[in-house]
């Protein structure tokens, strides 16, 4: 298994957000994470990306315990994420956002730049080109020079994904990536995620769009009140009585 | 402990209490604006100065009695607060970085107010005219208390308690607290948020002006830069007591006044007094920025 949650628990001021969450994500798959609002999905993603430390339990990435590492170290291990309420650099252009996301690449050191070496200029051009590549994968290369603050909602989500791709991730954590997108955009995202998985990326996906989750994910984990309700294939989960009860009245 | 040093200690405590209550009054105005708007109003000290100088002018130039000049100067300070809000803060409210731009704006207004004070009143130190009020002196052994000091403390405490009651009991007071909690929710509840904010500035500045008058009476010296020394101390007080907490400002002010006086008494010199204060401030900011009684979180927009 690639990513293993081992009894992860976290409470905030007496309120238990996560309680002994345990499941596994296999490498090279798209794993869905669903649950009613407030079930702890985003908190769990925060734990994985290192923004929140669990009170107890372990988190293993490729066999290595990462639950105590600071966020930047976890990113260096190839973990990228998007945010539910979108954290873009709004006063930068799309291209600049993605270049900023390339932080973990080598290069752009200060001394070659000070000496105006040709290698520095080449590196700069390379980083621009690579950033454009990420933008085209997310389908917004035509908005490269546009300020991130002026994008439409769907474009912003795609920019976040493009920026996450700049990290060349092994594990991609997506927190409601298609919320607010139109049908055509959703279809584009679906094929993007599938193509990523083909190149070996593992995706952990939070979404409320049930058809999307059912189509895309090979395995799904359901959270309810911070606890793992069940983990299984889409068919198993859809037929699970407790899942149906938890979602009673909630349509995908 | 010898009787003499006991008396000295007592005297110091009394002095500390008096200056502390003035600090507290000043700090309350500061913290009121921060609590409601999350903005540090650095023009507060300038209004402190203008309030004092206005009271002075009313008594010397216009020949009014101190009992009339006092409230008039307080009202004038409140009016300055309104000007401050309308000119410098209200236009910036919509901006994303309104905290920083509000701070800068208040710095600009502080400079403008200071230059007005300099221009109108000149750079010399002036004092309230003699005999402006009766100042009895009471002696208990070797401890001296003047009626002026008592009046200052009572005034400061009365105002601070009145403010606390106002915020807790009256509808307007509750509206202010609502806006302090969450501006958006307050608007949804139909509260006239802009009006509430303007009122907050008026009250805060009036209190600041009163603090200035009391300070000028106590130290018997007014100058256009008298706000300078209290500006940073007021900041230290609200950090100590907690940003946005009125009881914290009151207690913090008194504690600060006491610690100032005691530091001088212990070290024998006033040189390190401020250094100790700012070091303590620094340490508190590192350990618990919200202060001792402050709200831990920033208010929601």
């Amino acid at each position, binding site marked *: 298994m690639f990513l293993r949650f081992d009894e992860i628990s976290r409470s905030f001021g007496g309120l238990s957000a996560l309680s002994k969450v345990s499941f596994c994500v296999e490498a090279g798959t798209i794993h869905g994470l669903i649950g009613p609002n407030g079930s702890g999905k985003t908190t769990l993603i925060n734990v994985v990306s290192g923004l929140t430390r669990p009170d107890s339990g372990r988190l293993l990435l490729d066999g290595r315990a990462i639950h105590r590492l600071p966020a*930047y170290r976890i990113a260096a291990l190839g973990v*990228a994420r998007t945010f539910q309420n979108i*954290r873009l*650099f709004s006063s930068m252009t799309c291209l600049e956002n993605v270049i900023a996301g390339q932080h973990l690449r080598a290069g752009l*050191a*200060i001394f070659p730049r000070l000496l105006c070496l040709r290698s520095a200029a080449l590196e700069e051009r390379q980083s621009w080109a690579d950033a454009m590549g990420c933008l085209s994968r997310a389908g917004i290369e035509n908005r490269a020079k546009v300020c991130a603050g002026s994008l439409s909602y769907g474009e912003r989500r795609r920019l976040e994904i493009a920026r996450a791709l700049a990290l060349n991730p092994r594990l991609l954590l997506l927190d409601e990536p298609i919320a607010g997108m139109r049908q055509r955009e959703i279809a584009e995202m679906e094929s993007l995620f599938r193509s990523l998985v083909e190149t070996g990326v593992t995706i952990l996906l939070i979404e409320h769009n049930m058809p999307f989750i059912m189509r895309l994910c090979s395995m799904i984990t359901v959270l309810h009140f911070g606890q793992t309700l069940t983990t299984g294939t889409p068919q198993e989960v859809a037929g699970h009585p407790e899942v149906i009860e938890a979602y009673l009245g909630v349509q995908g | 402990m010898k009787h003499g040093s006991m008396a000295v200690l007592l005297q110091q405590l009394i002095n500390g209490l008096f200056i502390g209550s003035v600090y507290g009054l000043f700090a309350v105005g500061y913290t009121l604006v921060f609590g409601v708007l999350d903005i540090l109003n650095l023009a507060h000290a300038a209004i402190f100065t203008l309030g004092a100088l206005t009271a002075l002018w009313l008594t010397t130039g216009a020949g009014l009695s101190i009992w009339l000049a006092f409230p008039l100067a307080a009202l004038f300070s409140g009016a300055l607060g309104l000007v401050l809000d309308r000119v410098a803060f209200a236009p910036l409210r919509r901006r994303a970085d309104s905290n920083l731009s509000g701070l800068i704006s208040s710095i600009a207004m502080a400079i403008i107010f200071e230059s007005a004070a300099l221009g109108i009143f000149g750079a010399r130190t002036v004092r309230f005219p003699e005999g402006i009020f009766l100042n009895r002196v009471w002696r208990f052994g070797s401890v001296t208390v003047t009626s002026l000091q008592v009046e200052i403390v009572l005034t400061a405490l009365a105002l601070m308690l009145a403010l606390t009651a106002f915020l807790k009991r009256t509808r307007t007071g509750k509206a202010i607290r609502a806006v302090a909690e969450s501006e958006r929710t307050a608007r949804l509840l139909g509260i006239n948020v802009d009006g509430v904010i303007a009122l907050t500035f008026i009250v805060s500045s009036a209190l600041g002006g009163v603090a200035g008058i009391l300070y000028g009476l106590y130290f018997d010296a007014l100058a256009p830069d008298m706000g300078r020394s209290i500006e940073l101390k007021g900041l230290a007080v609200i950090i100590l007591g907690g940003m946005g907490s009125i009881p914290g400002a009151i207690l913090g002010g008194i504690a600060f006044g006491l610690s100032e006086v005691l530091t001088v008494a212990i070290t024998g010199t006033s040189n390190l007094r*401020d250094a100790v204060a700012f070091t303590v401030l620094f340490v508190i900011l590192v350990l618990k920025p919200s202060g001792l009684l402050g709200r831990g979180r920033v208010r929601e927009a």
Partner: protein
Amino acid sequence: MESFSQFFAVYGSLVNFIGINALLALSLYVTLSAGQLSLGNAAFAGIGAYASGILTMRFNVPYTISIAAGACLSAMIALLIGMPVLRIRGIFLAMATLAFGEVVRIAAVNMDITGGAQGLVGIPCKTTTYTIYGVLAATTYFLARLGGSKIGWSLASIREDETAAMVMGINTTYYKTLAFVLGAFIAGIAGAIYAHLNFIVTPGEFGFSAAVQLLIYNIVGGRQSIYGPILGAFILTALPEALRGVGVTAGPLRLGVNGVILLLVILYLPNGLISFFSKVSAWTGRRSGGAFRGEV
């Protein structure tokens, strides 16, 4: 040319001050570009000034080494207090650095080696206009190139959204400290150079007003590019002279004009005067990698 040397005879001192203030403004720009509102740079300049002044005066250390030593001391102290201080957010950071500045000032007033309230008197006059502008040019070049480097991009990311920066792999503590220390170093150089300009430095020159002044240079000039603080320092330093030309001498009116300018800028031109020259801004933006700006 004779008119040039005439100009210099009259305005030499002003030109020097503009250069030093520009350098100080740049030192704050570095810290602001990481989103840190630090008001301690005046104190760091003071530390550099006193340290280098003492070294030259008392210990006959050569000028260049003295300057470097003063700047290094500022940087080391910045490193020491940076770690705890940079964890504090926003306005509280400003207050903590302000408190630090006051402690430094009071220390300078109370120590014998710094000459107490009178200040350090008798520092050899070693700074020339060329020194000042040489250092300014070098610093400007360095910061311009820093903009498009990994460090520059990291600082810009931290400034925009620190949480997002963290999950992008940026060690925010490291970069914030770097910006803080670099700012202190530049301020230290500026202070050290200044100390050798006029025989004397006094504690009052590096206090609260000076700290606020540096912030004003950045705000009025503009935080979008490195030329903003330079422009701000130029305008606000030259302004009193210009006003003197039209008959407005030192005093309330001059002070008031400063305040009015600041108010007008923050209300109507929040990106500073440099945004007037938006074409230039865009040009320098593209050249230096774009994202390195001093907005907080």
